Protein backbone atom coordinates (compact mmCIF):
# COMPACT_ATOMS: atom_id res chain seq x y z
CA UNK A 1 0.00 0.00 0.00
CA UNK A 2 1.37 3.39 -0.89
CA UNK A 3 1.75 6.14 1.69
CA UNK A 4 -0.90 8.07 -0.25
CA UNK A 5 -3.61 5.66 0.93
CA UNK A 6 -3.10 7.05 4.46
CA UNK A 7 -4.53 10.35 3.29
CA UNK A 8 -7.83 8.62 2.63
CA UNK A 9 -8.63 7.14 6.03
CA UNK A 10 -11.84 7.21 8.02
CA UNK A 11 -12.51 10.85 7.29
CA UNK A 12 -12.77 12.39 3.84
CA UNK A 13 -9.40 13.55 2.57
CA UNK A 14 -8.26 17.14 2.15
CA UNK A 15 -5.51 17.71 -0.39
CA UNK A 16 -3.97 21.15 -0.05
CA UNK A 17 -1.69 22.73 -2.65
CA UNK A 18 1.06 25.32 -2.50
CA UNK A 19 3.59 26.31 -5.14
CA UNK A 20 7.06 25.40 -3.88
CA UNK A 21 9.11 28.50 -3.11
CA UNK A 22 6.17 30.92 -3.19
CA UNK A 23 6.64 33.64 -2.08
CA UNK A 24 9.90 32.24 -0.68
CA UNK A 25 11.00 28.89 0.67
CA UNK A 26 10.66 29.81 4.36
CA UNK A 27 7.06 31.06 4.14
CA UNK A 28 6.18 28.17 1.85
CA UNK A 29 7.39 25.67 4.45
CA UNK A 30 5.36 27.42 7.14
CA UNK A 31 2.28 27.27 4.88
CA UNK A 32 2.65 23.49 4.54
CA UNK A 33 2.63 23.07 8.32
CA UNK A 34 -0.33 25.44 8.54
CA UNK A 35 -2.28 23.20 6.16
CA UNK A 36 -1.40 20.16 8.27
CA UNK A 37 -2.56 21.88 11.47
CA UNK A 38 -5.75 22.92 9.71
CA UNK A 39 -6.57 19.32 8.86
CA UNK A 40 -5.02 18.58 5.46
CA UNK A 41 -4.37 14.87 4.92
CA UNK A 42 -2.13 15.18 1.85
CA UNK A 43 0.20 17.94 0.69
CA UNK A 44 0.63 18.83 -2.97
CA UNK A 45 3.72 20.88 -3.76
CA UNK A 46 4.03 22.56 -7.13
CA UNK A 47 7.46 22.63 -8.75
CA UNK A 48 7.20 25.98 -10.53
CA UNK A 49 7.25 26.11 -14.32
CA UNK A 50 7.55 29.20 -16.52
CA UNK A 51 4.55 28.29 -18.68
CA UNK A 52 1.94 26.32 -16.75
CA UNK A 53 -0.72 25.90 -19.42
CA UNK A 54 -3.30 24.20 -17.21
CA UNK A 55 -3.23 26.92 -14.56
CA UNK A 56 -5.37 29.99 -14.12
CA UNK A 57 -3.96 33.43 -13.25
CA UNK A 58 -3.55 32.79 -9.48
CA UNK A 59 -1.23 29.78 -9.79
CA UNK A 60 0.49 31.22 -12.87
CA UNK A 61 1.47 34.23 -10.75
CA UNK A 62 2.64 31.95 -7.93
CA UNK A 63 4.89 30.07 -10.37
CA UNK A 64 6.48 33.31 -11.50
CA UNK A 65 6.93 34.55 -7.90
CA UNK A 66 8.65 31.30 -6.97
CA UNK A 67 10.94 31.39 -10.01
CA UNK A 68 11.80 35.03 -9.36
CA UNK A 69 13.06 33.88 -5.93
CA UNK A 70 15.50 31.54 -7.64
CA UNK A 71 13.54 28.37 -6.86
CA UNK A 72 15.07 25.29 -8.47
CA UNK A 73 14.03 21.67 -8.55
CA UNK A 74 16.80 20.79 -6.07
CA UNK A 75 15.61 23.48 -3.66
CA UNK A 76 12.15 21.87 -3.73
CA UNK A 77 13.72 18.49 -2.96
CA UNK A 78 15.49 20.18 -0.02
CA UNK A 79 12.13 21.53 1.14
CA UNK A 80 10.67 18.02 1.13
CA UNK A 81 13.70 16.75 3.04
CA UNK A 82 13.08 19.38 5.75
CA UNK A 83 9.36 18.55 5.86
CA UNK A 84 10.11 14.86 6.15
CA UNK A 85 12.20 15.48 9.27
CA UNK A 86 8.96 16.51 10.98
CA UNK A 87 6.02 14.86 9.22
CA UNK A 88 5.08 11.65 7.48
CA UNK A 89 2.00 13.14 5.79
CA UNK A 90 1.68 11.98 2.16
CA UNK A 91 3.40 14.46 -0.18
CA UNK A 92 2.95 14.63 -3.95
CA UNK A 93 4.50 16.92 -6.51
CA UNK A 94 2.54 18.73 -9.15
CA UNK A 95 4.62 19.91 -12.07
CA UNK A 96 4.83 20.08 -15.84
CA UNK A 97 6.84 17.51 -17.69
CA UNK A 98 9.69 19.74 -18.88
CA UNK A 99 11.37 20.38 -15.49
CA UNK A 100 11.21 16.61 -14.81
CA UNK A 101 12.49 15.76 -18.31
CA UNK A 102 15.30 18.26 -17.93
CA UNK A 103 16.35 16.85 -14.54
CA UNK A 104 16.43 13.39 -16.12
CA UNK A 105 13.66 10.90 -15.38
CA UNK A 106 15.88 8.41 -13.53
CA UNK A 107 17.62 11.03 -11.41
CA UNK A 108 14.36 12.84 -10.64
CA UNK A 109 12.44 9.83 -9.38
CA UNK A 110 15.42 8.38 -7.52
CA UNK A 111 15.57 11.70 -5.70
CA UNK A 112 11.81 11.58 -5.03
CA UNK A 113 12.28 8.18 -3.43
CA UNK A 114 15.28 9.35 -1.43
CA UNK A 115 13.58 12.41 0.08
CA UNK A 116 10.15 10.83 0.52
CA UNK A 117 7.90 12.14 -2.24
CA UNK A 118 4.97 9.73 -2.60
CA UNK A 119 3.48 10.70 -5.93
CA UNK A 120 3.48 13.08 -8.86
CA UNK A 121 0.81 14.80 -10.92
CA UNK A 122 1.87 16.00 -14.39
CA UNK A 123 -0.96 17.94 -16.06
CA UNK A 124 0.66 17.90 -19.50
CA UNK A 125 1.29 14.17 -19.53
CA UNK A 126 -1.93 12.38 -20.48
CA UNK A 127 -2.44 8.64 -20.19
CA UNK A 128 -1.09 7.87 -23.70
CA UNK A 129 2.27 9.49 -22.95
CA UNK A 130 2.77 8.00 -19.48
CA UNK A 131 4.51 4.92 -20.88
CA UNK A 132 7.89 6.66 -20.94
CA UNK A 133 7.66 7.25 -17.17
CA UNK A 134 5.66 4.41 -15.70
CA UNK A 135 8.51 1.90 -15.30
CA UNK A 136 10.70 4.50 -13.63
CA UNK A 137 8.04 5.79 -11.23
CA UNK A 138 7.12 2.23 -10.24
CA UNK A 139 10.73 1.23 -9.71
CA UNK A 140 11.11 4.17 -7.32
CA UNK A 141 7.82 3.64 -5.52
CA UNK A 142 6.38 6.96 -6.67
CA UNK A 143 2.70 6.97 -7.68
CA UNK A 144 2.03 8.53 -11.07
CA UNK A 145 -1.34 10.13 -10.50
CA UNK A 146 -3.74 10.38 -13.42
CA UNK A 147 -6.21 13.14 -14.08
CA UNK A 148 -9.70 12.50 -15.37
CA UNK A 149 -11.67 15.36 -16.90
CA UNK A 150 -15.33 16.04 -17.74
CA UNK A 151 -14.43 15.32 -21.37
CA UNK A 152 -12.73 11.98 -20.62
CA UNK A 153 -15.94 9.95 -21.07
CA UNK A 154 -15.04 6.56 -22.56
CA UNK A 155 -11.40 7.08 -21.52
CA UNK A 156 -12.27 6.98 -17.81
CA UNK A 157 -12.21 3.20 -17.46
CA UNK A 158 -8.87 2.79 -19.25
CA UNK A 159 -7.19 5.60 -17.30
CA UNK A 160 -8.62 4.47 -13.96
CA UNK A 161 -7.55 0.87 -14.46
CA UNK A 162 -3.89 1.87 -14.85
CA UNK A 163 -3.92 4.67 -12.28
CA UNK A 164 -1.97 4.64 -9.03
CA UNK A 165 -2.16 6.62 -5.79
CA UNK A 166 -5.50 8.27 -6.28
CA UNK A 167 -7.66 9.56 -9.11
CA UNK A 168 -7.51 13.32 -9.60
CA UNK A 169 -10.92 14.16 -10.97
CA UNK A 170 -11.06 17.56 -12.68
CA UNK A 171 -14.39 19.13 -11.70
CA UNK A 172 -15.02 21.18 -14.80
CA UNK A 173 -13.66 22.47 -18.09
CA UNK A 174 -10.90 25.06 -18.05
CA UNK A 175 -7.79 25.87 -16.07
CA UNK A 176 -7.31 25.93 -12.29
CA UNK A 177 -9.00 28.67 -10.30
CA UNK A 178 -12.08 29.25 -8.18
CA UNK A 179 -15.50 28.79 -9.73
CA UNK A 180 -18.87 29.93 -8.41
CA UNK A 181 -20.66 26.83 -9.56
CA UNK A 182 -19.61 23.39 -10.72
CA UNK A 183 -22.19 22.02 -13.12
CA UNK A 184 -20.52 18.74 -14.09
CA UNK A 185 -22.34 15.55 -13.06
CA UNK A 186 -19.60 14.59 -10.62
CA UNK A 187 -21.32 11.59 -9.09
CA UNK A 188 -21.64 10.01 -12.53
CA UNK A 189 -17.92 10.49 -13.18
CA UNK A 190 -16.99 9.12 -9.76
CA UNK A 191 -19.16 6.06 -10.40
CA UNK A 192 -17.38 5.48 -13.69
CA UNK A 193 -14.01 5.64 -11.89
CA UNK A 194 -15.13 3.36 -9.09
CA UNK A 195 -16.34 0.80 -11.60
CA UNK A 196 -12.77 0.51 -12.88
CA UNK A 197 -10.59 0.94 -9.79
CA UNK A 198 -10.52 0.64 -6.00
CA UNK A 199 -8.35 3.76 -5.73
CA UNK A 200 -9.77 6.77 -3.92
CA UNK A 201 -11.15 9.63 -6.01
CA UNK A 202 -10.43 13.25 -5.10
CA UNK A 203 -11.99 16.22 -6.87
CA UNK A 204 -10.28 19.50 -7.63
CA UNK A 205 -10.42 22.59 -9.89
CA UNK A 206 -12.61 25.41 -8.64
CA UNK A 207 -13.28 24.10 -5.14
CA UNK A 208 -13.06 26.93 -2.59
CA UNK A 209 -16.12 27.27 -0.31
CA UNK A 210 -17.17 25.10 2.66
CA UNK A 211 -20.49 24.47 0.88
CA UNK A 212 -18.71 23.15 -2.23
CA UNK A 213 -16.43 21.05 -0.03
CA UNK A 214 -19.43 19.49 1.67
CA UNK A 215 -21.20 18.80 -1.59
CA UNK A 216 -18.13 17.16 -3.10
CA UNK A 217 -17.45 15.04 -0.04
CA UNK A 218 -20.88 13.48 -0.56
CA UNK A 219 -19.74 11.98 -3.86
CA UNK A 220 -15.94 11.69 -3.61
CA UNK A 221 -13.26 10.51 -1.20
CA UNK A 222 -11.55 13.85 -0.96
CA UNK A 223 -11.30 17.43 -2.12
CA UNK A 224 -8.34 19.22 -3.62
CA UNK A 225 -7.89 22.94 -2.97
CA UNK A 226 -5.17 24.90 -4.76
CA UNK A 227 -5.88 28.39 -6.06
CA UNK A 228 -7.80 29.51 -2.95
CA UNK A 229 -4.81 28.65 -0.74
CA UNK A 230 -2.30 30.15 -3.15
CA UNK A 231 -4.39 33.34 -3.17
CA UNK A 232 -3.98 33.55 0.62
CA UNK A 233 -0.21 33.25 0.13
CA UNK A 234 -0.31 36.05 -2.42
CA UNK A 235 -2.45 38.32 -0.23
CA UNK A 236 -0.81 37.73 3.14
CA UNK A 237 2.76 36.58 2.45
CA UNK A 238 4.53 36.08 5.82
CA UNK A 239 1.15 36.25 7.58
CA UNK A 240 -0.37 33.65 5.25
CA UNK A 241 0.13 30.56 7.48
CA UNK A 242 -2.45 31.71 10.07
CA UNK A 243 -4.98 32.48 7.33
CA UNK A 244 -4.32 29.15 5.64
CA UNK A 245 -4.66 27.17 8.87
CA UNK A 246 -8.05 28.78 9.58
CA UNK A 247 -9.21 28.35 6.02
CA UNK A 248 -8.29 24.66 5.83
CA UNK A 249 -9.91 24.09 9.23
CA UNK A 250 -13.10 25.70 7.94
CA UNK A 251 -13.12 23.46 4.86
CA UNK A 252 -12.40 20.28 6.80
CA UNK A 253 -14.76 21.02 9.72
CA UNK A 254 -17.44 18.53 8.73
CA UNK A 255 -15.22 16.00 6.99
Amino acid at each position, binding site marked *: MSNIAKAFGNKKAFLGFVTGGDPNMEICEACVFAMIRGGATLIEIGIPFSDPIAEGPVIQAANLRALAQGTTTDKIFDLVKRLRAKTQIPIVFLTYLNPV*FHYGYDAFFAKCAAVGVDGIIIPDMPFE*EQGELRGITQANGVDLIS*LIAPTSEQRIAEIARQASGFIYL*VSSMGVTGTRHAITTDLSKMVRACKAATDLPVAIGFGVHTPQQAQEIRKVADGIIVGSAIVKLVENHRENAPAFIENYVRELTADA
Partner: protein
Amino acid sequence: MKTGRFGDFGGQYIPETLMNEIHALETAYARYKDDPDFTAELGALLRDYAGRPSLLYYAEKMTKALGGARVYLKREDLNHTGSHKINNVLGQVLLAQRMGKTRVIAETGAGQHGVATATAAALLGMECEIFMGKEDTERQALNVYRMELLGSKVNPVTSGTMTLKDAVNETMREWVRRTRDTHYVLGSVMGPHPFPTIVRDFQSVISKEARAQILEREGKLPAAVVACVGGGSNAMGMFYHFIPDAGVRLIGCEAAGRGIDTPQHAASIAKGTLGVFHGMKSFFCQNDQGQIAPVYSISAGLDYPGIGPEHAHLYETGRAEYVPVTDDEAVDAFVFLARTEGIICAIESAHAVAHAIKLIPALSKDDSVILCLSGRGDKDVAAIARYQGVDIHE
Protein backbone atom coordinates in the same frame (compact mmCIF):
# COMPACT_ATOMS: atom_id res chain seq x y z
CA MET B 1 7.87 5.26 -35.57
CA LYS B 2 4.98 5.82 -33.14
CA THR B 3 1.87 7.62 -34.33
CA GLY B 4 2.33 11.34 -34.32
CA ARG B 5 6.08 11.09 -33.89
CA PHE B 6 8.93 12.16 -36.11
CA GLY B 7 11.66 9.93 -34.73
CA ASP B 8 11.34 10.59 -30.99
CA PHE B 9 10.00 14.12 -31.57
CA GLY B 10 6.36 15.15 -31.35
CA GLY B 11 3.76 13.42 -29.21
CA GLN B 12 0.66 14.64 -27.41
CA TYR B 13 1.76 16.26 -24.16
CA ILE B 14 -1.45 18.09 -23.32
CA PRO B 15 -3.99 18.19 -20.51
CA GLU B 16 -6.43 15.29 -20.25
CA THR B 17 -9.30 17.71 -20.84
CA LEU B 18 -8.14 18.10 -24.46
CA MET B 19 -7.43 14.46 -25.25
CA ASN B 20 -10.80 13.44 -26.59
CA GLU B 21 -10.92 16.60 -28.67
CA ILE B 22 -7.49 15.96 -30.16
CA HIS B 23 -8.51 12.39 -30.96
CA ALA B 24 -11.67 13.71 -32.63
CA LEU B 25 -9.46 15.99 -34.71
CA GLU B 26 -7.25 13.06 -35.74
CA THR B 27 -10.30 11.08 -36.76
CA ALA B 28 -11.86 13.95 -38.69
CA TYR B 29 -8.61 14.73 -40.47
CA ALA B 30 -8.10 11.08 -41.47
CA ARG B 31 -11.64 11.02 -42.80
CA TYR B 32 -11.55 14.26 -44.79
CA LYS B 33 -7.98 14.80 -45.96
CA ASP B 34 -8.50 12.76 -49.12
CA ASP B 35 -12.28 13.16 -49.28
CA PRO B 36 -13.12 14.38 -52.81
CA ASP B 37 -15.66 16.98 -51.62
CA PHE B 38 -13.25 18.33 -49.02
CA THR B 39 -10.26 18.55 -51.35
CA ALA B 40 -12.40 20.07 -54.10
CA GLU B 41 -13.75 22.75 -51.77
CA LEU B 42 -10.30 23.53 -50.39
CA GLY B 43 -8.76 23.49 -53.86
CA ALA B 44 -11.35 25.95 -55.13
CA LEU B 45 -10.78 28.31 -52.20
CA LEU B 46 -7.00 28.15 -52.63
CA ARG B 47 -7.34 28.94 -56.34
CA ASP B 48 -10.19 31.44 -56.44
CA TYR B 49 -9.85 33.10 -53.06
CA ALA B 50 -6.22 32.78 -51.94
CA GLY B 51 -4.79 33.17 -55.44
CA ARG B 52 -2.90 29.90 -55.87
CA PRO B 53 -0.75 28.69 -57.40
CA SER B 54 1.64 31.35 -56.14
CA LEU B 55 4.27 32.59 -58.58
CA LEU B 56 7.76 31.22 -58.80
CA TYR B 57 9.54 34.40 -59.80
CA TYR B 58 13.01 34.46 -61.30
CA ALA B 59 14.82 37.24 -59.45
CA GLU B 60 17.14 38.26 -62.25
CA LYS B 61 18.49 41.43 -60.67
CA MET B 62 19.17 39.71 -57.39
CA THR B 63 20.89 36.88 -59.28
CA LYS B 64 23.12 39.39 -61.09
CA ALA B 65 23.85 41.29 -57.89
CA LEU B 66 24.95 38.12 -56.08
CA GLY B 67 26.76 36.48 -58.98
CA GLY B 68 26.10 32.80 -58.29
CA ALA B 69 23.18 30.42 -58.58
CA ARG B 70 19.97 31.61 -60.19
CA VAL B 71 17.56 32.88 -57.55
CA TYR B 72 13.86 32.09 -57.59
CA LEU B 73 11.37 33.53 -55.15
CA LYS B 74 8.32 31.50 -54.19
CA ARG B 75 5.86 34.35 -53.79
CA GLU B 76 3.69 33.35 -50.83
CA ASP B 77 3.58 37.08 -50.07
CA LEU B 78 1.20 37.46 -53.00
CA ASN B 79 -1.43 35.21 -51.46
CA HIS B 80 -4.60 36.80 -50.14
CA THR B 81 -3.88 38.19 -46.62
CA GLY B 82 -0.23 38.51 -47.61
CA SER B 83 1.41 35.33 -46.38
CA HIS B 84 1.54 31.54 -46.53
CA LYS B 85 -0.67 31.35 -43.43
CA ILE B 86 -3.86 31.30 -45.49
CA ASN B 87 -2.97 27.84 -46.93
CA ASN B 88 -3.27 26.18 -43.54
CA VAL B 89 -6.10 28.32 -42.23
CA LEU B 90 -8.50 27.59 -45.07
CA GLY B 91 -7.88 23.86 -44.62
CA GLN B 92 -8.34 23.91 -40.87
CA VAL B 93 -11.45 26.09 -40.90
CA LEU B 94 -13.10 23.83 -43.49
CA LEU B 95 -12.18 20.85 -41.32
CA ALA B 96 -13.58 22.58 -38.21
CA GLN B 97 -16.86 23.15 -40.02
CA ARG B 98 -17.10 19.49 -40.87
CA MET B 99 -16.50 18.70 -37.21
CA GLY B 100 -19.55 20.83 -36.41
CA LYS B 101 -17.61 23.68 -34.84
CA THR B 102 -18.97 27.23 -35.01
CA ARG B 103 -16.09 29.06 -33.39
CA VAL B 104 -12.35 29.23 -34.03
CA ILE B 105 -9.54 30.52 -31.83
CA ALA B 106 -5.92 31.12 -32.77
CA GLU B 107 -2.64 32.50 -31.50
CA THR B 108 -0.69 35.01 -33.50
CA GLY B 109 2.78 36.51 -33.32
CA ALA B 110 3.28 39.03 -36.09
CA GLY B 111 -0.43 38.95 -36.81
CA GLN B 112 -0.17 37.11 -40.13
CA HIS B 113 -1.78 33.94 -38.81
CA GLY B 114 -4.33 35.94 -36.86
CA VAL B 115 -5.29 37.97 -39.93
CA ALA B 116 -5.54 34.81 -42.04
CA THR B 117 -7.73 33.10 -39.43
CA ALA B 118 -9.94 36.17 -39.02
CA THR B 119 -10.27 36.31 -42.81
CA ALA B 120 -11.27 32.67 -43.18
CA ALA B 121 -13.69 33.03 -40.27
CA ALA B 122 -15.32 36.04 -41.94
CA LEU B 123 -15.60 34.24 -45.27
CA LEU B 124 -16.87 30.97 -43.84
CA GLY B 125 -19.14 32.44 -41.18
CA MET B 126 -17.36 31.35 -38.01
CA GLU B 127 -17.04 33.23 -34.74
CA CYS B 128 -13.35 34.06 -34.15
CA GLU B 129 -11.13 35.08 -31.26
CA ILE B 130 -7.42 35.76 -31.59
CA PHE B 131 -4.85 35.73 -28.78
CA MET B 132 -1.84 37.96 -29.26
CA GLY B 133 0.93 38.93 -26.86
CA LYS B 134 0.45 42.47 -25.64
CA GLU B 135 3.95 43.40 -26.79
CA ASP B 136 3.08 42.13 -30.28
CA THR B 137 -0.22 44.04 -30.34
CA GLU B 138 1.93 47.13 -29.93
CA ARG B 139 4.57 46.07 -32.48
CA GLN B 140 1.83 45.15 -34.98
CA ALA B 141 -0.99 47.57 -34.16
CA LEU B 142 -2.25 47.70 -37.75
CA ASN B 143 -2.78 43.93 -37.83
CA VAL B 144 -4.82 44.14 -34.61
CA TYR B 145 -7.16 46.63 -36.22
CA ARG B 146 -7.23 44.53 -39.39
CA MET B 147 -8.46 41.51 -37.43
CA GLU B 148 -11.08 43.63 -35.70
CA LEU B 149 -12.25 44.98 -39.06
CA LEU B 150 -12.74 41.37 -40.12
CA GLY B 151 -15.08 40.84 -37.18
CA SER B 152 -12.73 39.00 -34.81
CA LYS B 153 -12.11 39.72 -31.18
CA VAL B 154 -8.43 40.25 -30.35
CA ASN B 155 -7.36 39.40 -26.79
CA PRO B 156 -4.04 40.97 -25.76
CA VAL B 157 -2.13 38.45 -23.65
CA THR B 158 -0.46 39.97 -20.60
CA SER B 159 1.00 36.81 -19.04
CA GLY B 160 4.67 35.81 -19.21
CA THR B 161 6.77 37.58 -21.82
CA MET B 162 3.62 38.85 -23.62
CA THR B 163 4.76 37.45 -26.98
CA LEU B 164 4.00 34.45 -29.21
CA LYS B 165 4.75 31.71 -26.65
CA ASP B 166 2.33 33.33 -24.21
CA ALA B 167 -0.27 33.73 -26.95
CA VAL B 168 -0.05 29.95 -27.53
CA ASN B 169 -0.38 29.33 -23.75
CA GLU B 170 -3.48 31.49 -23.56
CA THR B 171 -5.10 29.97 -26.66
CA MET B 172 -4.55 26.49 -25.19
CA ARG B 173 -6.10 27.65 -21.91
CA GLU B 174 -9.09 28.98 -23.83
CA TRP B 175 -9.43 25.67 -25.67
CA VAL B 176 -9.34 23.78 -22.36
CA ARG B 177 -12.25 25.99 -21.27
CA ARG B 178 -14.32 25.40 -24.37
CA THR B 179 -13.92 22.60 -26.88
CA ARG B 180 -17.53 21.71 -27.61
CA ASP B 181 -18.07 24.35 -30.31
CA THR B 182 -14.47 25.56 -30.71
CA HIS B 183 -11.54 24.52 -32.89
CA TYR B 184 -8.04 25.79 -32.20
CA VAL B 185 -6.55 26.78 -35.57
CA LEU B 186 -2.90 26.25 -34.65
CA GLY B 187 -0.74 28.34 -36.94
CA SER B 188 2.47 26.37 -37.23
CA VAL B 189 3.87 22.85 -37.54
CA MET B 190 3.97 22.55 -33.78
CA GLY B 191 1.84 21.59 -30.82
CA PRO B 192 0.41 18.15 -30.13
CA HIS B 193 -0.14 15.57 -32.84
CA PRO B 194 -1.96 15.80 -35.25
CA PHE B 195 -1.27 19.54 -35.65
CA PRO B 196 2.32 19.24 -36.96
CA THR B 197 1.10 16.84 -39.64
CA ILE B 198 -2.10 18.74 -40.51
CA VAL B 199 -0.32 22.09 -40.84
CA ARG B 200 2.55 20.55 -42.83
CA ASP B 201 0.10 18.87 -45.21
CA PHE B 202 -1.83 22.07 -45.82
CA GLN B 203 1.41 24.04 -46.28
CA SER B 204 3.01 21.40 -48.49
CA VAL B 205 1.17 22.96 -51.44
CA ILE B 206 4.12 25.40 -51.49
CA SER B 207 6.71 22.76 -52.41
CA LYS B 208 4.27 20.78 -54.51
CA GLU B 209 3.88 23.82 -56.77
CA ALA B 210 7.49 24.99 -56.51
CA ARG B 211 8.93 21.62 -57.47
CA ALA B 212 6.85 21.45 -60.64
CA GLN B 213 7.52 25.13 -61.41
CA ILE B 214 11.30 24.88 -61.09
CA LEU B 215 11.42 21.70 -63.19
CA GLU B 216 9.48 23.52 -65.88
CA ARG B 217 11.73 26.59 -65.72
CA GLU B 218 15.13 25.01 -65.17
CA GLY B 219 14.64 21.44 -66.29
CA LYS B 220 16.29 20.25 -63.09
CA LEU B 221 15.89 20.46 -59.36
CA PRO B 222 17.36 23.38 -57.39
CA ALA B 223 20.59 23.09 -55.42
CA ALA B 224 18.83 24.35 -52.33
CA VAL B 225 15.56 25.66 -50.96
CA VAL B 226 15.72 28.26 -48.20
CA ALA B 227 13.03 29.40 -45.76
CA CYS B 228 12.78 31.16 -42.41
CA VAL B 229 11.88 29.12 -39.34
CA GLY B 230 10.04 30.09 -36.18
CA GLY B 231 7.66 27.24 -35.41
CA GLY B 232 8.47 26.32 -39.01
CA SER B 233 5.29 26.21 -41.10
CA ASN B 234 6.45 27.94 -44.27
CA ALA B 235 9.75 26.06 -44.12
CA MET B 236 8.00 22.71 -43.68
CA GLY B 237 5.71 23.58 -46.59
CA MET B 238 8.71 24.65 -48.69
CA PHE B 239 10.76 21.54 -47.79
CA TYR B 240 8.19 18.80 -47.85
CA HIS B 241 8.08 17.64 -51.48
CA PHE B 242 11.85 18.11 -51.79
CA ILE B 243 12.64 15.77 -48.85
CA PRO B 244 12.98 12.68 -51.10
CA ASP B 245 15.25 14.66 -53.48
CA ALA B 246 18.52 13.95 -51.72
CA GLY B 247 20.47 16.39 -53.90
CA VAL B 248 18.39 19.38 -52.80
CA ARG B 249 19.72 21.10 -49.67
CA LEU B 250 16.98 22.15 -47.27
CA ILE B 251 18.00 25.22 -45.28
CA GLY B 252 15.99 26.75 -42.44
CA CYS B 253 16.91 30.21 -41.13
CA GLU B 254 16.36 30.80 -37.43
CA ALA B 255 16.11 34.17 -35.72
CA ALA B 256 19.43 34.96 -34.06
CA GLY B 257 18.17 38.33 -32.81
CA ARG B 258 21.11 40.28 -31.41
CA GLY B 259 23.35 37.23 -31.90
CA ILE B 260 23.41 33.64 -30.65
CA ASP B 261 26.23 34.58 -28.28
CA THR B 262 23.83 36.93 -26.48
CA PRO B 263 20.71 35.83 -24.56
CA GLN B 264 18.59 37.75 -27.04
CA HIS B 265 17.76 35.30 -29.80
CA ALA B 266 15.12 32.73 -30.74
CA ALA B 267 17.41 30.08 -32.22
CA SER B 268 16.05 26.79 -30.88
CA ILE B 269 18.27 24.59 -33.07
CA ALA B 270 21.50 26.51 -32.61
CA LYS B 271 21.04 27.15 -28.90
CA GLY B 272 18.09 25.08 -27.73
CA THR B 273 18.01 21.71 -26.01
CA LEU B 274 15.61 18.80 -26.05
CA GLY B 275 12.46 19.35 -24.02
CA VAL B 276 8.71 18.94 -23.82
CA PHE B 277 6.50 21.98 -24.20
CA HIS B 278 3.35 23.09 -25.98
CA GLY B 279 2.31 19.50 -26.50
CA MET B 280 5.47 18.28 -28.23
CA LYS B 281 8.91 16.87 -27.62
CA SER B 282 11.35 19.01 -29.58
CA PHE B 283 14.15 21.56 -29.19
CA PHE B 284 13.47 24.59 -27.01
CA CYS B 285 15.34 27.61 -25.72
CA GLN B 286 15.33 26.90 -21.98
CA ASN B 287 17.49 27.32 -18.90
CA ASP B 288 19.29 24.67 -16.84
CA GLN B 289 16.10 24.02 -14.85
CA GLY B 290 13.91 23.33 -17.88
CA GLN B 291 12.25 26.73 -17.61
CA ILE B 292 11.36 28.12 -21.03
CA ALA B 293 13.62 31.07 -21.82
CA PRO B 294 12.43 34.50 -22.86
CA VAL B 295 13.38 34.78 -26.52
CA TYR B 296 13.93 37.78 -28.74
CA SER B 297 13.80 38.63 -32.42
CA ILE B 298 13.01 41.76 -34.37
CA SER B 299 10.49 39.52 -36.08
CA ALA B 300 7.37 38.86 -33.99
CA GLY B 301 6.65 35.82 -36.18
CA LEU B 302 9.96 34.09 -35.37
CA ASP B 303 9.97 35.15 -31.71
CA TYR B 304 9.17 31.65 -30.45
CA PRO B 305 11.30 29.44 -28.12
CA GLY B 306 10.71 26.14 -29.94
CA ILE B 307 10.63 24.50 -33.34
CA GLY B 308 8.21 21.98 -34.84
CA PRO B 309 9.00 18.30 -34.22
CA GLU B 310 9.42 17.39 -37.89
CA HIS B 311 12.12 20.06 -38.22
CA ALA B 312 13.83 18.65 -35.12
CA HIS B 313 13.79 15.27 -36.84
CA LEU B 314 15.07 16.64 -40.17
CA TYR B 315 17.86 18.33 -38.23
CA GLU B 316 18.78 15.28 -36.21
CA THR B 317 18.85 13.01 -39.24
CA GLY B 318 20.93 15.57 -41.12
CA ARG B 319 18.41 15.96 -43.95
CA ALA B 320 17.97 19.68 -43.32
CA GLU B 321 20.37 22.39 -42.14
CA TYR B 322 19.45 25.24 -39.84
CA VAL B 323 21.38 28.50 -39.69
CA PRO B 324 21.06 31.53 -37.42
CA VAL B 325 20.40 34.97 -38.94
CA THR B 326 20.66 38.15 -36.86
CA ASP B 327 18.34 41.16 -36.79
CA ASP B 328 20.99 43.26 -38.52
CA GLU B 329 21.42 40.74 -41.34
CA ALA B 330 17.64 40.44 -41.76
CA VAL B 331 17.14 44.20 -41.93
CA ASP B 332 19.96 44.56 -44.47
CA ALA B 333 18.35 41.80 -46.56
CA PHE B 334 14.94 43.46 -46.25
CA VAL B 335 16.41 46.66 -47.73
CA PHE B 336 18.45 44.74 -50.33
CA LEU B 337 15.41 42.93 -51.70
CA ALA B 338 13.38 46.13 -51.79
CA ARG B 339 16.09 47.95 -53.77
CA THR B 340 17.13 45.17 -56.14
CA GLU B 341 13.78 43.57 -56.89
CA GLY B 342 11.23 46.15 -55.73
CA ILE B 343 9.76 43.67 -53.27
CA ILE B 344 9.11 44.56 -49.65
CA CYS B 345 9.03 41.21 -47.90
CA ALA B 346 8.10 40.31 -44.35
CA ILE B 347 10.93 40.68 -41.85
CA GLU B 348 10.46 36.95 -41.16
CA SER B 349 11.12 36.12 -44.83
CA ALA B 350 14.05 38.55 -44.85
CA HIS B 351 15.89 36.05 -42.61
CA ALA B 352 15.83 33.60 -45.54
CA VAL B 353 16.90 36.33 -47.96
CA ALA B 354 19.81 37.19 -45.66
CA HIS B 355 21.14 33.66 -45.68
CA ALA B 356 20.68 33.41 -49.45
CA ILE B 357 22.86 36.49 -49.83
CA LYS B 358 25.65 34.56 -48.08
CA LEU B 359 24.96 31.25 -49.81
CA ILE B 360 24.34 32.08 -53.44
CA PRO B 361 27.67 33.62 -54.52
CA ALA B 362 29.38 30.33 -53.60
CA LEU B 363 27.08 28.24 -55.79
CA SER B 364 27.46 27.48 -59.48
CA LYS B 365 25.75 29.66 -62.05
CA ASP B 366 24.32 26.47 -63.49
CA ASP B 367 22.36 25.87 -60.32
CA SER B 368 19.26 27.44 -58.91
CA VAL B 369 18.02 28.19 -55.40
CA ILE B 370 14.44 28.78 -54.28
CA LEU B 371 13.74 31.22 -51.46
CA CYS B 372 10.37 31.10 -49.81
CA LEU B 373 9.06 34.64 -49.49
CA SER B 374 6.59 33.67 -46.81
CA GLY B 375 4.95 37.06 -46.45
CA ARG B 376 4.82 40.66 -47.51
CA GLY B 377 6.39 43.39 -45.45
CA ASP B 378 3.80 46.16 -45.24
CA LYS B 379 3.27 45.27 -41.58
CA ASP B 380 6.98 45.74 -40.87
CA VAL B 381 7.65 49.08 -42.48
CA ALA B 382 7.09 51.11 -39.31
CA ALA B 383 9.23 48.74 -37.23
CA ILE B 384 12.07 48.82 -39.76
CA ALA B 385 11.91 52.61 -39.76
CA ARG B 386 12.18 52.61 -35.96
CA TYR B 387 15.08 50.13 -36.15
CA GLN B 388 16.88 52.48 -38.51
CA GLY B 389 16.14 55.43 -36.27
CA VAL B 390 13.57 57.03 -38.57
CA ASP B 391 10.59 58.57 -36.81
CA ILE B 392 7.43 57.99 -38.83
CA HIS B 393 3.80 58.02 -37.85
CA GLU B 394 1.46 55.35 -39.17
